[in-house]
């Protein structure tokens, strides 16, 4: 029983962390319909950038994550521009080739990381990593608490941005009806480009959290394809609140299966959940349709 309780508590914390790594995809895929399979690869790339700053210049991983955020934003703007010019504008089977394109990009990133950093696991050092808090019999690693706090903050921040600011509302308007936005005299492509930039920029902090929670290796993105897409689809495309709820469900499911059946089943959980959601309720928990 205690074990189960601990699993649930850890699961909730882990879930909030999953929300942070998925929230970018919730914007790029959920709102903009970009088949962004390379999202987890971008995430791992951000983690390595954080590792580079932490290892070489002794910068706190979270601060390092913030430092690379503007860089990622520009990178996101450029990436969307390329995607738009080569696929969306040409129409027809843009989605089919878009997926292939992003898969190719993910592979290229993976290999570049391997060539530069090697295949070994990398981790960061900070004062809050390696310690843990005790609540009665429960032991909660402090690194998970930090991830939980920052992840929740990030998710709330992005959700507020999308619902309260002018640009945020414009992004949601484009997601709802692109043609109507065009008729209002706004340029939907520039709004989408901005949104994709933001979706990529949040990967700075998310990547920092990824390497704080556990060591990363170059092929970690493959496991996170399942987790991030599971969260975004389960959430109902583009719903920020849904993202948080879905991520917590995934986190709890993972830790419970982990305690009951062992780690060897762990990789399948997110994918199995994803299949289940697609088969039973493709519009997700808080879906638009």
């Amino acid at each position: 029983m205690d074990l189960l309780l601990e699993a649930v508590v850890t699961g909730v914390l882990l879930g909030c962390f999953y929300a942070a790594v998925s929230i970018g995809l919730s914007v790029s895929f959920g709102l903009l319909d970009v088949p962004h399979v390379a999202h987890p690869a971008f995430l791992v790339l951000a983690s390595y950038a954080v590792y580079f700053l932490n290892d070489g210049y002794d910068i706190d991983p979270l601060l390092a994550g913030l430092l690379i955020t503007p860089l990622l934003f520009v990178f996101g703007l450029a990436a969307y521009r390329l995607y738009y010019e080569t696929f969306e504008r040409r129409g027809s089977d843009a989605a089919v080739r878009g997926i292939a394109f992003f898969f190719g990009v993910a592979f290229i990133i993976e290999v570049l990381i391997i060539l530069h950093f090697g295949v070994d696991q990398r981790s960061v050092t900070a004062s809050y990593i390696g310690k843990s808090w005790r609540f009665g019999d429960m032991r909660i690693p402090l690194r998970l608490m930090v991830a939980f706090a920052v992840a929740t903050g990030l998710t709330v921040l992005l959700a507020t941005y999308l619902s309260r600011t002018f640009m945020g509302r414009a992004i949601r308007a484009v997601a709802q009806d692109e043609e109507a936005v065009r008729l209002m005299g706004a340029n939907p492509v520039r709004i989408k480009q901005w949104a994709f930039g933001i979706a990529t920029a949040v990967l700075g902090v998310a990547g920092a959290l990824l390497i704080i929670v556990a060591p990363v290796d170059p092929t970690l993105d493959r496991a996170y394809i399942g987790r991030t897409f599971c969260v975004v689809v389960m959430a109902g495309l583009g719903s920020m609140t849904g993202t948080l709820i879905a991520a917590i469900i995934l986190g709890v499911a993972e830790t419970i299966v982990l305690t009951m059946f062992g780690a060897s089943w762990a990789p399948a959980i997110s994918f199995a959940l994803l299949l289940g959601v697609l088969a039973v309720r493709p519009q997700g928990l808080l879906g638009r349709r």
Partner: protein
Amino acid sequence: MMKRNSLAFWGAAVLFLAVVLLATQLVSNEYWFFAGYVILQFIVLSVAWSILGGYAGYVNFGTSAFFGVGVYTAVLLFKAFDAPLLVQIAAAAAVGALLGFAVGLLTLRMQGIFFSIATIALTIVIETTVTNWRFLGGAAGIQIQRPPVTAPFPSYVQMLVFVQASLVVISVAIARYIQNSWIGRGLQALRDDELAAECTGVPTLRLKMVACVISGALMCAAGAPAAMYLQYADPASAFNLNYSVSVLAMALIGGTAHWIGPVIGAILLGITQQLLAVTISSEVNVLVLGVMLVLFVVGAPEGIIGLFRKGRRAEGKA
């Protein structure tokens, strides 16, 4: 016209098999067979992939699932009943057809990226199941002792090359048949506009199921001899996502409008990969694969056969 085409095709197929058979008798350097086997295997996989991925436009990322299931069907039959190679392949094809049917039922109602993501998900779920299956060796993998080779072939690998070459002929013949029949026309119609096709009376779901079953059976059959080829099988490499992406890249780079596209793509990329793996490293190999995939998807969406057609059209104008 159609008749003469068919005659040429079957003539070429028989000639191809005869050359492979002759090579197994005359060439003694085993390296050529090790390399050739991999290329032939990729031809079967990418031709099979493009039946669903190319003609119907459903991007299947589950190639590694089918391939891995083929490998493990062969391992299971060999370990439990000492089944001969041909039985292993036939059984793998049957299992592949069943799996294709199940995958189709579960996922073919989804479109675009949802289908692709669902096929990745299926790969990981099956891989995890095999990893947790003790009898098949679990995560550590399983060693396989090859049985003695049968009559005309000097070594087992050379026999496998001939078997895989036969699979190439079978899969190309099937792909060619589909392309020229009403199935292929129906698939192309639903690829261009699924709703319009459905409205004009094309049985879209049934056609997609047929494509998925045939494609799955061929992919599994291609995977079955791999266990004997490597004398070893483990889930992490049998279900490796690299198979999915390589096969996808080969089909798209060759071009998916005609069955010759995936064949060209597989030969081209297969040879490049063999050269790179020998001369540089397997990482650079994957890098080249990724870069070529991105370049072709961006620059030449119709693949190599598209480039040729464009060239011919330009010539015609000039």
